[in-house]
């Protein structure tokens, strides 16, 4: 009897201890291996690249993915996870630099950085003026993907097509506040980086009015699939997605409206609190290597800033304007700037009102 009582009392305790110990062990077990933690947009690097990197350098890459730069910022600054390398967009990088959250990259450890095209490095200076913190990944423009059977090519020469009600219920708008507001601001003739409250309010009003004609607010792949399947006729989308869409549906075409568009650039940066900055630099050098950059290019078909890749491409793909836009696109293109916390909050508030 005594024995029974003993076990009755201690079995649960032992069980609890075992559970606690195994959970602690399994958590610490991972960090003993050489590991680099990357925080990236979803599906933005060919998964095979990680395997090749691990094979060659013995460093495992653990990737966390996010959808919108604001999500990244919230998680990154919450400090719940430490990353060795992050990838984000122009204005978000600018914000992180401004807040002193990024560490300068030692470019001597990234010799393949020489592959970067001069023009793209100049564009990168809009958010990293001295080029001390970043390595560009991809760049591109916002434009209109449309169905040539149902939409007249002349219509998509202006952003007006999204607001005049002609294609009501067939329109997909981007589910990202900066992109959606950029379209409305440009249509109203305002600067895409405006901090003027009246102008932003006017853009929000325009977007609210437009909402009745919008079928859905979607990003990237989700928007592309709607057009490929013929469920929508017009989508505001990044050029790289457009090229993928052509492969799946040859009735689709891409246009950049004449009022101008925005040029975005996504780049890698090393956080100030990175634990393995050396691994991150090694990985960056790997990404800049011509063969690996080509793998990534052929995985995503976004415009690559890697000159070595561009030089090796054939004429057919270089002439594809959805990937390599005409020079005229640059002339009235805006690069997103970080607008400060106050305007950022105004954006959030207005965007919430538009969507609700």
């Amino acid at each position, binding site marked *: 009897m005594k024995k029974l009582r003993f076990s*009755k009392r201690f079995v649960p305790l032992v069980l609890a201890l075992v559970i606690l110990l195994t959970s602690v062990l399994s958590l610490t077990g991972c960090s003993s291996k050489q590991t680099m933690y990357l925080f990236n947009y979803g599906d933005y690097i060919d998964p095979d690249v990680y395997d090749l990197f691990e094979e060659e350098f013995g460093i495992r890459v653990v990737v966390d993915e996010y959808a919108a730069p604001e999500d990244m910022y919230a998680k990154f600054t919450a400090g719940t996870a430490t990353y060795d390398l992050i990838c984000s967009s122009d204005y978000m990088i600018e914000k992180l630099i401004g807040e002193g959250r990024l560490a300068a990259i030692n470019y001597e450890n990234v010799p393949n950085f020489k592959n970067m095209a001069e023009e793209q490095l100049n564009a990168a200076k809009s958010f990293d003026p001295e080029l001390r913190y970043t390595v560009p990944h991809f760049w591109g423009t916002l434009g209109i993907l449309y169905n040539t059977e149902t939409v007249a090519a002349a219509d998509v020469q202006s952003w007006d097509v999204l607001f005049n009600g002609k294609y009501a219920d067939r329109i997909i708008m981007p589910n990202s506040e900066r992109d959606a507001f950029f379209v409305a601001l440009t249509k109203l003739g305002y600067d895409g980086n405006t901090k003027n409250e009246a102008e932003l309010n006017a853009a929000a009003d325009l977007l609210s009015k437009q909402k009745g004609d919008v079928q859905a607010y979607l990003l990237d792949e989700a928007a592309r699939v709607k057009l490929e399947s013929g*469920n929508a006729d017009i989508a505001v989308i990044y050029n790289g997605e457009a090229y993928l869409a052509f492969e799946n549906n040859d009735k689709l075409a891409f246009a950049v409206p004449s009022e101008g568009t925005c040029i975005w650039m996504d780049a890698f940066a090393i956080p100030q609190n990175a634990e393995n900055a050396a691994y991150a630099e090694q990985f960056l050098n790997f990404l800049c290597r011509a063969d690996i950059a080509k793998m990534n290019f052929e995985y995503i078909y976004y415009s690559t800033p890697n000159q070595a890749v561009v030089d090796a491409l054939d004429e057919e793909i270089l002439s594809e304007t959805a990937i390599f836009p005409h020079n005229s696109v640059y002339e009235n293109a805006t690069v997103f700037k970080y607008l400060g916390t106050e305007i950022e909050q105004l954006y959030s508030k207005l965007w919430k009102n538009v969507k609700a």
Partner: protein
Amino acid sequence: MTNKRNIWLTGPYLVWIAGFIILPLLVILFYAFTNPAGNFTFSNITAAVTDITNIKAFGLTMLLGFLATAICLLLAYPLALCLTKLKIKQKSSVIFLFILPMWMNFMLQMVAINVILEDNGIINMLLSSLGLPNMHIANTFGAILIGMVYDYFPFMLLPIYNTVSRIDKDLINASKDLGASSFMTFLKVTLPLSMPGVISGITMVFVPAISDFAIAEMLGGGKIMLIGNVVEMSFTKGQYFQGSGLALILMLFVVASSLIPGDDEAEASVEGGVVLP
């Protein structure tokens, strides 16, 4: 004595509750009454209930919650009654059919519903082939409602079925012996005895329905914001303080709706086999 000793067995779960339920609740409580400077404030709460966008979202959420619960109840109750009349073997296979969708990943279910409802989707293809005009359901309030009913239906069916199937047949026979019609028997015997199941079904559908954001996000095309979406948006944009204020208000609704009275009393009456007057 034995009860006291067995309390040890709850140890692991108590640790779980403390770490993953109590602690996060305290964090939310803290954020809800704090401003970004770290001072005590009520402004997150007042903003949560005075902002016109939030009120609109609350209204939509409640409407959707009520409709989804009502539809689930209307579909599940008659079905539960029919199920009890089936033979044991048929019973288990029919119930199996209703639980089957839960084997599939939730995201896949929603993607599939979207494909069915889309403008070029399966429903519209069928309508066109019959020469009927197309319906525009995708990315509307209706689409979210369909998604919710689909997703939460088993949670309404199972509790109702469990209580209905436990009703003593003798009570129903007695009611008929005493001259009650089938309808009166249902009204005076079956319905009151099934109330515990109905109430737990309502709670199990209404509570998740009003705190949901994923269904609205996936089936609403980002055009309809429920209160869950507003909370999610606040948190992903790093506005923890406003988000926590909203979450706290939402929690009040959840707590209120799970306090629907009569639960214990009705449960006791079933176990005791006594019909309430």
